[in-house]
């Protein structure tokens, strides 16, 4: 492929070299993990009920989290994007805090209010409900750490929306609600989906806050830690009995499944765009 005259070859080569270093750093660990797990190891992970159950739990709770983020985040993003009000930039900054604090700090912060001995947690405890552990605790934690992505995407989309669209709809007699669902939302659906995907990704990768708020039932990231800490990197076999699949195997399985889901998302995203 001949380069056109005036092509800044040296410049591009230097950029490519630097990019190559980063690309290698980003790709090689994941590749090494997947290739480092033997086929028999992967089969051990796929047939292990605990591993499958925790991967399914990860998918389920991430999906729930993304749904909650959309249902509650679109309204917030809309308000922040559309209206100028006193304290708007303060609210804007506050909702970014969960994204910036260390994950263990997030877990500790959550437990000081939702733990069963604390303010809100104690209220629910009175009705026999626990807000820590189980799907409730997991989704509560995941929404805290990942919903902001959806809010931000929606907020930016609303800000760059042509205000004439809504005005025209209203001037033709449509109610505000009708306008919202039939004019505004369809125009920003791409950003909503992007936000939901970012929320999902962030949710399924969470571990630090979950150690504190919702250790069990374990999502995949926690199970992999349990396996690593208790049995080591590889499968544990004693007297011919398999004690546990290795952390490497379950990790490789999880990455493959996650990759599959995200490829699916990307296909759907692209199809809609065409």
């Amino acid at each position, binding site marked *: 492929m001949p380069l056109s005259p005036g092509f800044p070859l040296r410049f591009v080569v230097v950029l490519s070299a630097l990019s190559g270093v980063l690309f290698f750093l980003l790709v090689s660990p994941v590749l090494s993990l997947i290739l480092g797990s033997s086929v028999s190891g992967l089969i051990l992970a796929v047939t292990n009920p605990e591993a499958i159950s925790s991967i*399914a739990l990860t998918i*389920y709770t991430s999906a729930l989290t993304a749904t909650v983020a959309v249902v509650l985040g679109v309204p917030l993003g809309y308000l922040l994007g559309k209206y100028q009000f006193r304290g708007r930039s303060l609210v804007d900054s506050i909702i970014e805090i969960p994204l910036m604090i260390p994950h263990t700090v997030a877990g500790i912060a959550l437990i000081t209010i939702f733990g069963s001995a604390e303010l809100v947690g104690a209220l629910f405890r009175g009705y026999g409900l626990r807000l820590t552990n189980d799907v409730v605790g997991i989704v509560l934690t995941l929404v805290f750490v990942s919903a902001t992505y959806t809010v931000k995407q929606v907020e930016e989309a609303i800000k760059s929306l042509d205000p004439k669209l809504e005005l025209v709809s209203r001037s033709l007699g449509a109610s505000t609600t009708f306008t919202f669902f039939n004019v505004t939302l369809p125009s920003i659906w791409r950003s909503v989906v992007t936000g939901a995907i970012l929320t999902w990704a962030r949710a399924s990768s969470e571990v630090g806050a979950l150690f504190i708020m919702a250790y069990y039932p*374990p999502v995949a990231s926690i199970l992999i830690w349990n396996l690593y800490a208790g*049995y*080591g990197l590889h499968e544990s076999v004693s007297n011919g009995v398999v004690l546990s699949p290795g952390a490497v195997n379950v990790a490789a399985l999880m990455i493959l499944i996650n990759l599959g889901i995200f490829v699916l998302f990307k296909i759907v995203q692209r199809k809609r765009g065409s």
Partner: protein
Amino acid sequence: MSLIVKYGKVLLLLATVIGLVVGYGAGYYVGLSSAHQPTTLLVDAAGTLQVPFNSIVNNVLRSEYPSLSYNYIFEGSRLAANEITEANKSFDIYASADYRLIPEKLMPSYASWYIIFASNSMTVMYTNQSRYASEITPANWYQVITRPGVIVGVSDKDTDPSGSQAIFMVELAGLLYYGNSSYIYDQLYVTKAANHELIVVPTETTLDAQLETGAVDYVLTYSSEAISHKLQYLNLDPKVNLSNLTLANWYSQVNVTAEGKLSKGGPILYDVTIPSNSPDPAMGEAFIKDLFSAQGQDILRSSGLQPLNPVYVYNQSAVPSDIIQAIQQSGITIEPAP
């Protein structure tokens, strides 16, 4: 433009439906093994008990309770105790690698009895890749691990008893071989620490992985870890390895401050209790009965722990009678705990 809007809506609906189906399907699968099951066991215990306890649950308890839902936290015993006392979590079983933690932290609010059921010993664990692996022996270990360039791994005394016990082992070795308890201690915890050649982790069991990946050369930990992970280890002198109950006085010559409290050297003893806020004490009892069954005792042994006979019980009148019966039926005698 209205055409694109319509087209987008259909796909949005389709994606939502697919998402809901996938989500529901995953949720259904999870529901099969969720905590709403009638039989749940929640265990909170020392990291070194993960392998034998999981074995007992999967090979013994599950055959009695096929639809059992089992969840656990295994970590440094102090951290595990904090889950109950600080984080207000409830479990059916708490077991510790330092028998003094139940009276120190859990009593009286969270526990009223305990049973000391097994012992362990300290060792130096390593692999073929460890520096000077071919030279190290039970007679020269304290000289080899202190050589410059050798990286040693221990756990944190403030989160995990084995961290304190590693310090006891090193201080006792100093007494035994040099007549000075600080001699070897300083070489490791002062000199090596300053050179970043001492790695301190919060949970003893993560040191195994550190060893496997070559991040450390030698780990001061329990022999059970080496045995259950099939790693190399040394049989050290009973005067330094904290294994012998009759040497308790010799061990008590050394001490360390952990979590702000002074703690004296002593034999490594594991104890277990059913916390008073246990959600399902009957399951806790079932587990402990299996722990003392012949199979349970075998599992303990094969993971490198020493099941005790006699066992030591604190406040026997508060212990559920089924458990006392199960112990006696296994031919194990009971003595009162100190």
